[in-house]
């Protein structure tokens, strides 16, 4: 009787223990599943945030070509300025030759860092080009941006802002560079015109028809005397090539 009573007593608790064990196992499984889910979701969200940060940085990345030229031994010499908000890492330089049919595309690996606001020169100095004409230079950054420079284009180099003209010291010089299709610089005739209401060129009329020197360059002095200040455009056209530059004259 004692033995039977003990067994009966134990059996009464068995259901509860089994139930608790199963509930515990269920909770354990559910918790494990939940924790796994949360961890993976957090990891995914972090990855997405990192990539969004990359996209954001990519959108704020910018460089401007200051000049592209060939050295005397036909080495490429690219100068660019970082005008964006982040340091730029250039990883590839592409050379597209438009003169050959079909055009050729070559890429060279580079490793150049440019800090914000800084200018770096001699990019691509290990690359030899036979001629500068009809070539497009492409720079590729680590963040996936690409920047192009057409070597077959007119470049106008000079300040974006000029003072209200009062003395001869207020002339501002602009250098116009015109390439040729062969890449060899020769004197080239071009028209020059500025649409400001009181813009004058130094020594020539506005508009005028002039030519570059043997190295393909022409330097013109510009002044403007509009008292309240204005923004005008300088137009240069040589054959089918056209260049425009916006210049702002400060108020007097």
């Amino acid at each position, binding site marked *: 009787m004692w033995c039977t009573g003990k067994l009966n007593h134990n*059996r009464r608790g068995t259901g509860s223990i089994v139930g608790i064990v199963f509930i515990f196992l269920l909770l354990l499984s559910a918790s494990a*599943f939940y924790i796994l889910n949360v961890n993976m979701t957090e990891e995914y969200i972090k*990855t997405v945030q990192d*990539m969004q940060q990359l996209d954001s940085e990519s959108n704020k990345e910018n460089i401007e070509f200051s000049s592209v030229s060939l050295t005397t031994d036909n080495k490429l010499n690219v100068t660019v300025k970082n005008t964006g908000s982040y340091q730029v890492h250039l990883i590839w330089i592409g050379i597209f030759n438009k003169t050959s049919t079909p*055009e050729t595309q070559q890429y060279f690996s580079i490793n150049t860092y440019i800090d914000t606001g800084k200018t770096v020169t001699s990019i691509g100095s290990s690359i030899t080009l036979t001629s500068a004409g009809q070539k497009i230079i492409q720079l590729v950054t680590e*963040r996936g941006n690409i920047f192009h420079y057409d070597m077959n284009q007119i470049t106008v180099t000079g300040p974006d802002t000029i003072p209200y003209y009062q003395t001869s010291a207020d002339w501002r010089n602009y250098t116009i560079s015109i390439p040729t299709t062969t890449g060899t610089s020769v004197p080239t005739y071009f028209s020059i015109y500025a649409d400001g209401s009181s813009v004058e060129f130094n020594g020539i009329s506005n508009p005028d028809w002039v030519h570059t020197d043997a190295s393909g360059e022409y330097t013109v002095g510009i002044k403007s005397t509009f008292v309240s200040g204005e923004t005008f455009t300088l137009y240069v056209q040589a054959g089918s090539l056209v260049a425009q530059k916006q210049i702002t004259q400060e108020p007097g």
Partner: protein
Amino acid sequence: MIPSFFHDKRGVSEVVASLMMIVLVLIASVAVYSYSVKTFNSSSSLLQLNTALKEEQARERLSIIAVWWDNASQLNVTVLNYGKIEIVIDAVYVNGVRASVYISGKGNTLLREGIAGVRFVSPVSIADGNTYEITAITERGSRDVVYWEA
């Protein structure tokens, strides 16, 4: 004691019933638990797989940086991988038509910061001066679209 042990039937049905109940409950519990564990494992595996795929896809970034044309029927798209994971170009579309004949580049692994060309026969005829929509798609489903003038 012996005769009463074999002949006294009182309480037997209760014991058998209890044992049967325990056995049934155990079998049912084991079945339910096995099913639950299997379902949980299956769900978590599926979830892991989906999340891993989504995460890898989120880390992908590609850009078509150049398109080359041989002035006949072949095109070559140069793809830059600027993401955080290697990519494999799986398909190229021209104006929404999938290229079916590839000369090189398709299926090759492109490492981070790397560029590679995928050369193929254009599925649509190319005419000088026209603009075409070129789409490159990776195995994980990321894509980049450019508009290219022949």
